[in-house]
């Protein structure tokens, strides 16, 4: 795929123009639009994508776009976004046709729900699976690895640096987090300086 890939293990979850610029100011080259209206910040998002920032969109959380092929084509072709996140297998299958990276969200609420989610993993394998809540990753990683070797994201209820680190230590490749104080701790700029 020609769109930018991920460049680090912390993925700032943003919801508006302010949080987008905050993440970019901290040196991040990747964001997840988790909530809010995509259309309200379409200009800044498109311009970030043109500058090589990897933009992922949570299709189940954002407002302003439909969950259909027209919306996926727009994200992929017009905006140059890198990927989408959803719990809906059909939507992800559609997204892969537009060469978007597909991240299948799976709820880890109880063992029954997790089994159902894991058994619905799309074929071909998604780019990643996103476990929600992310803080459950240490508890459920063994069950996940029994069925798939797909990269794992932790997303939801990761509010401190300690939680982010423990989710990564448990084997997650990426954690998404909406807290700027955690973004600062993981900031790629601070590492480079």
């Amino acid at each position, binding site marked *: 795929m020609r769109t930018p890939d991920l460049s680090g293990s912390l993925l700032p979850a943003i919801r508006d123009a302010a949080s987008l610029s905050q993440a970019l100011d901290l040196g991040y080259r990747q964001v997840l639009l988790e909530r809010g209206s995509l259309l309200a910040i379409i200009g800044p998002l498109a311009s970030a994508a043109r500058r090589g920032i990897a933009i992922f969109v949570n299709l189940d959380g954002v407002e302003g776009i439909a969950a259909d092929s027209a919306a996926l084509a727009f994200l992929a072709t017009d905006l140059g976004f890198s990927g989408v996140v959803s719990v809906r297998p059909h939507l992800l299958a559609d997204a892969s046709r537009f060469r978007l990276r597909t991240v299948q969200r799976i709820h*880890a609420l*109880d063992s029954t729900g997790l089994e159902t989610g894991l058994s619905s993993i799309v074929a071909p394998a998604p780019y990643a699976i996103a476990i929600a809540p992310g803080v459950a990753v240490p508890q459920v990683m063994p069950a996940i690895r029994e069925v798939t070797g797909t990269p794992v994201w932790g997303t939801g209820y990761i*509010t401190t640096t300690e939680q982010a680190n423990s989710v990564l230590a448990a084997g997650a490749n990426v954690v998404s987090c909406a807290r700027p104080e955690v973004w600062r701790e993981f900031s790629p700029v601070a590492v480079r300086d």
Partner: protein
Amino acid sequence: MAKGAIPPPTRGRNVDSSVSRLREGFGRVPVAAVIRRAEELPQALASQVPAVFFLRAPAFHLGPLVWAVQARGKMAFVHIDLIAGLGKDRAGVAFLAREIGVNGIITSHSGLIAAAKAERVVAVQRLLLYDDLALPSALNALDHARPDVVEVLPAIIFPLVVDQIRARLSLPMIVGGFVTDATHREAALERGALAVSTSTPSQWP
């Protein structure tokens, strides 16, 4: 389970489906057994748990399982969202309450809570904690639906949000979801949960 051991249908109104009975039971043993397959039931029946939660059971073969639970003096709850073959609507709720005679219904959907309360069974609404950003709207939905009991999942999140929940709701809470050892159970009970629900048989007292 021998077929001859199955008692006749209780037909709903003959069973005590009160929240106070549930509170009393959990006062003695604060654990509900979650059953996902019929083979798991005998161990739950033999345990001290006062309530059994059926997940994923087939609707039209559920009766004997429910009646076996009630014959042991336990309360039987059914998770209607995951029951194969049953409409997730008023008629589905009425079938479970009147024909099967369940003590309570578990659902994530506010719309079914009203139906369960109308049928005078215990209405348990699930609070699914997968995303901190979704919590405020989930609490609004619960506040509006007014279930008898809230089932909070997964257990690992409960201590992080219990104060936020209590600030909005004064409902009894059952904590479930990956309650696989005593640490999880004690953590939930210490923070004021009425009980835990678990499908791990070693956690059924």
